[in-house]
């Protein structure tokens, strides 16, 4: 699946998007955050406070316990500050 990062999540990880293949045990958005956080220092820094991270699956907001099966694109970003 494609994963996208925005704002300071993108800056901390050092990339805007990538394709990842998490193991089958990674079932929810929360699981994916924990798995990504284990991929290295930059990821651990980006996801150091999971509760502030917002997620979207295929362009729609989702909650941390949402299942990721079937997702084409998952995005992680900080709380939004537009308007």
């Amino acid at each position, binding site marked *: 699946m494609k994963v996208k990062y*925005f704002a300071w999540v993108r800056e901390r990880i050092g990339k805007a998007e990538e394709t990842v293949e998490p193991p089958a045990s990674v079932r929810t958005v929360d699981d994916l955050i924990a798995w990504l956080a284990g991929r290295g220092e930059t990821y651990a820094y980006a996801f150091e406070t999971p509760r502030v991270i917002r997620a979207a699956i295929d362009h*729609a907001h989702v909650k941390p316990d949402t299942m990721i099966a079937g997702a084409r694109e998952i995005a992680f970003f*900080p*709380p*939004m*500050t*537009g*308007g």
Partner: protein
Amino acid sequence: MTAAVTIRIQQADFDVAQEIAALTKARTDVGAVVSFSGICRGSEGDEPIAALTLEHYPGMAEAEIARHAETAMSRWPLTGLTVIHRVGRIVPGENIVLVVTASQHRQAAFEAAEFLMDYLKANAPFWKREEKPAGTSWVDARDHDDAAAARWTRS
């Protein structure tokens, strides 16, 4: 006549008068137009701000605004609405965002414009970065923006 919905995300500035005129042009059923412009301030508290840079999530930003526009159209008897959000670097005094709502009567136009702005602030995937004397930093989300959006949720 059908209701006109316009949603644009762009780097360029917009002309408020032109956008208002577009919602009333060639129709006689519009009795009220409300417009809200969000403008870049030159300071935050005591700290001067040289510029803001707006980042967005292409695709989702349009989809999220469209969802809110659809909700507004179904909740209020609007004849049209326009939402324009700028991205990129914006200096103090420049426009950031525009919401225009048109209706036969003022109450629907006022309420829908406020609803759209509250939802945009809390849910549309845009992020602001400020340029201050000490350096640049991402703007923190405000809890009261979430509270403002939540008050529109029907229980």
